[in-house]
């Protein structure tokens, strides 16, 4: 190995999930579509750092919802925008997974808290 190599890629260390209202015109419905926002919220997965990789991260909320359109508005922030907070399954587990790589699954929250 050359001295440029720094060792194994680290898995992001998830710190918390923040769900906050946001002023948005549209958001994801968690079923693959962008829809007009009803009660939009940001789903911010806060970690020590978010490196990039070939596969995209997807936020799995509960059993049925998968959010795929993300942004990185600041260091350590991976943000998804849900169109309707009321459609989010409060209390359900939330995890991240990169593409179909089940080994990459990272638990984000054992129980989703949705602001009222």
């Amino acid at each position: 190995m050359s001295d440029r190599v720094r060792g194994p890629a680290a898995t992001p260390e998830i710190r918390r999930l923040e769900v906050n209202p946001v002023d948005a015109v549209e958001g994801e419905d968690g079923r693959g579509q962008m829809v007009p926002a009803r009660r939009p919220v940001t789903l911010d997965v806060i970690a020590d750092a978010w490196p990039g990789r070939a596969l995209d991260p997807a936020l799995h909320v509960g059993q049925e919802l998968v959010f795929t359109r993300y942004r990185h508005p600041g260091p350590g922030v991976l943000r998804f925008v849900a169109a309707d907070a009321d459609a989010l399954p409060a209390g359900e587990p939330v995890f991240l997974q990169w593409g179909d790589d089940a080994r990459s699954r990272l638990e984000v929250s054992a129980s989703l808290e949705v602001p009222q």
Partner: protein
Amino acid sequence: MNVAAAFFAPLVLAALLTLAPGCEGGDGDACPDGDVSIALECPTEVDAGCVPEAGAVVGDFGVEARSCGGVVEAVCDPAEGSTFAPGETTVTCEARDATSGEPPATCELTVVARPEGSFSLRCHERVSVECQGSLTPADVPLPEVVALCGSPTGSIASDAPAGGYPAPAPTSETTVTFSAASATGYEATCATVVEVVDTAAPELTCPAALTAVRTSADAAVAPPALAGLDQCGGERAATAAPAALARGTSTVTYTAADAAGNATSCSTPVTVLDAFAVTGLRVASASLPPGGATKVSLAWDPAGGDDAVGYRVERGPGPDGPWEALDTVGLEALVHTDPALADDVTYYRVVTLAAGGVDGGAATLRAYALAGGTYDLRDQRVPTVTFATTLYGVARHPRALADGPFPLVLLLHGNHGNCRPPSLAWDDECSETTDHDCHWWGYTTTPNAEGLVYLAETLAAQGVVAASLSGNALNCRDDYIGERAELVIEHLRRWAGWATAGGSPLGVDLAGAVDTTRVGLVGHSRGGEAVALVPSRLAATPVAGVTVASVFSIAPTDYHGPVPDGVEYAVLLPGCDGDVYTLEGMHIYDRALADPAAGVARSQVFFPRANHNFFSTEWRFDDNGWGLVCATSVEAGDVAQQRMLEATLGAWFQGTLIATGTAALEGFLQAQGPTPPGIDAWVGTSLDLRWSHAAGSRLVIDDLSDDRAPAMNLLGLPNAFTGFTTARVCSEAGCDTSFPHRRTAVLLSWEEAAGVATWSLGGLDASAGEALSFRVVSRNSGLNAGLEAQEFLVRLRDTGGAEIEVLLSSLARVPHLYQAYNQREVLQTVRLPLDEVRALSPELDLGALGELEIETSVAGHESGSVILTDVELAIE
């Protein structure tokens, strides 16, 4: 009466009184027998002595006239007592008997009157000298002077040539004329012929022994040249017998002959050594350190020839030298690095050395010194990108742009963090940016484009203008692969403009230096999928002056199913890829096989020990982590991965972009033959590369896609599978969970039995083809337990029954999987070159092929399982 007449008078009177023989006086006595004829005798010559120019009187000629019949009188004309001038005068005399009436008698004489002052020169008739060169000096004796009535005053002159006499061609005779004059003005000349002869044979000396070198296996070797030295003709090339030599020691007889046919011979032992030129000489790597000189590493494959002992590496300014020796190395050395190219264009020559320091065959290579720069165009519009963004490229090109136009290669990295934290101990992080830069406080911009510049440098040294592009603004967003393709196309649009109108932002005039009708694209990860998308985007919306010829994807994603139609396409799959662990780049390859008459080649290389990230020098963390996909101990490492890619990419673009004319891909890129030893040497480890290859034009015999498969192939002819425990058509997970190819194939298993799989070819005329091939992979099955590599028989038979049978291992090594935790069954091509069939079995009629078979009856491989598909005839 003058004095002369008085002097000569008695001689005249004597003529009046001379009687015919037998007669007694002149008084009319009767002649014996009645003979009354007249006898007249003249002297041949009357010497008048030395006479003045006015002449002298000559009185008595001494003519005798006789007659028995009477008195006769000789009358001469000119008469005696006449004045004779210097020279020779013919006098005619006549005697007539007035009484007898007999016919007169006549005679002639010559009065010789020598001029006063006369003399003669008596030359040697001929002088012969031995040739001593083109001109030979000769000592021609002066003539003898014969003083007649005088002698020459002054010296005797001659017209002898000053420089000497010419060599025989084939003869040489020169007439030398001597002349002299006396005081009276009398002149005399004479001549000597000077002949130059060559009777001496050339000198020829054979050395004690000679050495000759055969520089290639099919080269005929003539004995070393030898020359004799001929005294007359100078150096004379000697003929040799025998004229052609085989390896070993032979006695050669040399003969040197001159133009006169004189010859000399000698003999000497001549030893022929085999020291062939190296093959596969290539630029393995090039780099341009900041502010430094271009560094180039060469690699080559070992020279053939049993007498090769090493190599001498040289460089020079031109293909014919003059050569400066850089290093002399042993046979084990297959790499040389020149740390600093001094000239814009440098030629390298690797000379194979034979024993005794004799030069054998040589191979030459050209390398370009590099220059480069970066362009950074802000607020640019790119189709489908919703924000103004940056066109940023790090370019490398030959310093000698005037040698162009050069093909253009653009490289695009993949999705990766675009913000670099303050400590290099941390990985790059993702940020949202619309331009090239990271805007987070305390971070710097990740040099993603710079991560592929090492490839741009290696290509540029081979005669390419290359630029590694920044996709930082498109990174860290979901997908954005189509946008990446449009980014590449926008860069191409700009390059086409710079190549025609000039005015590039690099500070050099690119007009005429770049050929955008010969474009190659390289992409890594999402960049790999993006460049595979470009051909279809350009087909739909062409860019004037831009034609993409060749695309190479490194560990690409396959989000959008690109089909790289109309371009030569290659894909690299890393076996320790912890990111795109599904190796979905193979789907791009498999889809690219759809048109067998497309005229463009496809290659896929599976590199088991490589990870995803280390193909970029700036992606510094191992995506395989602590061993996600394979044990970290089996990984080849960043240096080996990058070197493998430099050499492989260079070979790929040499065959598909750089070389013009009937350039062909190197064998290893066509799944024919192992990785060149020079590349292994450059990489530093033996590379276990498994190649798939589909020729540009081919006949698909069977891909198991027919509804009647496996019983029928695509030629509409029957297949047969006997002795197998399993012979079924499957695809992807339908074969087994380790088989990722979305491609129909036949799964074959055998247990303690010989299975025979037969594809009927129905008299197929393969005489114009290059190779028969199929793709195969060893299955992740207990039937292959303990196996290192598959082995079975491959058999080809013509309709007449002539056949050839070879072991699989003689064609290709098909390893049993690879070291990884979740091994994937990646197909590789096994290729049977038809040239080899012709050589091994000349009686087999390639114009009427009957069957292709594989038989699993090799000892030690009584049980096994493989998946096989894509049985093809490569036409070109």
